[in-house]
């Protein structure tokens, strides 16, 4: 039995394949750990409460943290509202028009974010006359997030088993009742995952904000227009080219905070999805 012809060669091939797969996985882990290491080492000396109590002008980051969180929350609200509805439309109601929208959404995913920023500058900042502002910046981020939210909503809704929807129709439910009470409920974990990916992406964006939010050394004023907003990615991007060691440290700390925020969003998503499936 064990002396079957060619068995040794097949086993060797199997082990080689495993080895190659493992080696290449390790290769892609190297830059990841390197990034974490560099950011951690360079930001470590500056880690203190000052970050949370002082603004960027005084060596802290509180205005940038507050600005980032504010912009991301604002744009997420808009993107969830618009994206979930258009995803529902694409999955449940759309005909030929829907395939055009779908194509445009896919194209939008590929538009460089700097183009979105420039569009925001021309339309929101100049044409609408809002100036550098939270509103212009949040709308630019919304444009970045929208295709992700729309498409993941659509995909999640398409995965709802048809017998479940039929069960609802058979009880006399209309299409919209079925979407609201059955499909969205079933698709919720998928939609949530898509939303959180979009949130993470928007948290890491710089380009759409440079032209729309500008930057501010002060805490967000709360005004939606004519008031520049600070944000973390700007600190990372701009402060690293300043000729001061303290500015470099601020840039690294900003990166660290961004990474921690994205990490916690990811963990939060996993936790929520797991809990959802359990119930």
């Amino acid at each position: 039995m064990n002396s079957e012809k060619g068995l040794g060669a097949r086993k060797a091939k199997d082990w080689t394949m495993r080895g190659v797969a493992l080696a290449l996985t390790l290769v892609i882990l190297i830059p990841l750990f390197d990034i974490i290491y560099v950011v951690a080492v360079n930001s470590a000396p500056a880690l203190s409460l000052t970050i949370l109590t002082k603004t960027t002008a005084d060596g802290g980051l509180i205005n940038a943290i507050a600005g980032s969180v504010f912009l991301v929350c604002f744009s997420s609200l808009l993107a969830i509202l618009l994206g979930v509805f258009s995803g529902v439309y694409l999955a449940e109601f759309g005909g030929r028009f829907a395939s055009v929208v779908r194509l445009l959404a896919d194209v939008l995913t590929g538009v460089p974010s700097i183009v979105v920023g420039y569009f925001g500058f021309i339309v929101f900042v100049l044409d609408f006359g809002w100036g550098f502002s939270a509103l212009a910046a949040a709308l630019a981020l919304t444009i970045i997030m929208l295709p992700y939210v729309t498409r993941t909503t659509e995909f999640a809704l398409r995965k709802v088993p048809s017998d479940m929807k039929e069960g609802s129709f058979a009880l006399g439910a209309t299409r919209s009742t079925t979407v609201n009470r059955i499909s969205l409920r079933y698709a919720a974990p998928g939609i949530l995952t898509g939303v959180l990916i979009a949130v993470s992406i928007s948290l890491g964006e710089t380009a759409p904000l440079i032209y729309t939010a500008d930057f501010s050394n002060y805490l967000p004023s709360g005004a939606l227009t004519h008031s520049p907003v600070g944000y973390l990615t700007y600190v990372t991007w701009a402060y690293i080219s300043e000729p001061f060691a303290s500015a470099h440290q601020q840039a690294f700390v900003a990166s660290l905070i961004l990474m921690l925020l994205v990490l916690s969003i990811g963990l939060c998503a996993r936790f929520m999805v797991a809990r959802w499936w359990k119930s």
Partner: protein
Amino acid sequence: MVEVLTTRTESAQKAVMHLQADSQAESKVALKGLSVWYGMSKVVDDVSIDFRRNRVTAVMGPSGCGKTTLLKTLNRMIDLVPDARVEGEAYMDGQNILDPQFDVTILRRHVGMVFQKPNPFPMSIYDNVAFGPRIHGMKKKGELDRVVEESLVGAGLYGEVKDKLGKPASSLSGGQQQRMCIARAIAIKPEVLLLDEPTSALDPSGSLKVEQLITTLKENYTLVLVTHNMQQAARISDNTAFLYEGRLVEYGETGQMFENPKEELTEKYITGKFG
């Protein structure tokens, strides 16, 4: 055009009168010359059946004979199939339910359906059963509690689930899920209950319970049972319709049909010569 319509209505009215006379006022749903096409292929061919009130009528036949399609026209689920076309009439208490003007939401409130595979909604047992009453406007907690309990009792499931109504429906066994789906269907108090091979995905003990339930349900409902299982049709139905390649071969009392079929094709089918 108007003329054609008038003649059609007249002939339809005659058909109703004929059927009512024929069935000693026991008719609940009457199909008159029903044909269904999927694209170019005709899957139901000129079928006329009179489903009697408070009876279990089995619709049997080999796979692909059109029995599920026939069932789906009775609650117009066929409307959801994009390229399906229906011709003929179906009268429920004298009203043509295939008339495009007839509101499907109202129709489906009167004609419940249980599917081949149990299809619990992703929510608790209670919410599953309360789903129908809720979408039709019932809001009061007390009323809902009562309907949920009644329906679960009616489906012979209450004793097994009364302490875990808040648990997800997916935690039930297959047979229990199917009985919960029956409870969900009867919670909106339909008059007709369509059962599409309701035991085909269940194990023997689950099937037995569902079969026993079906025979008790006919006290209050008119049941149409699609099955490919001849023994099941023989065990629990009062009348049987045998469909073959979309056509109604024979329709009559179950006992008579199994002991003494009129058609050769029926005899061949029930003696297992094909199918």
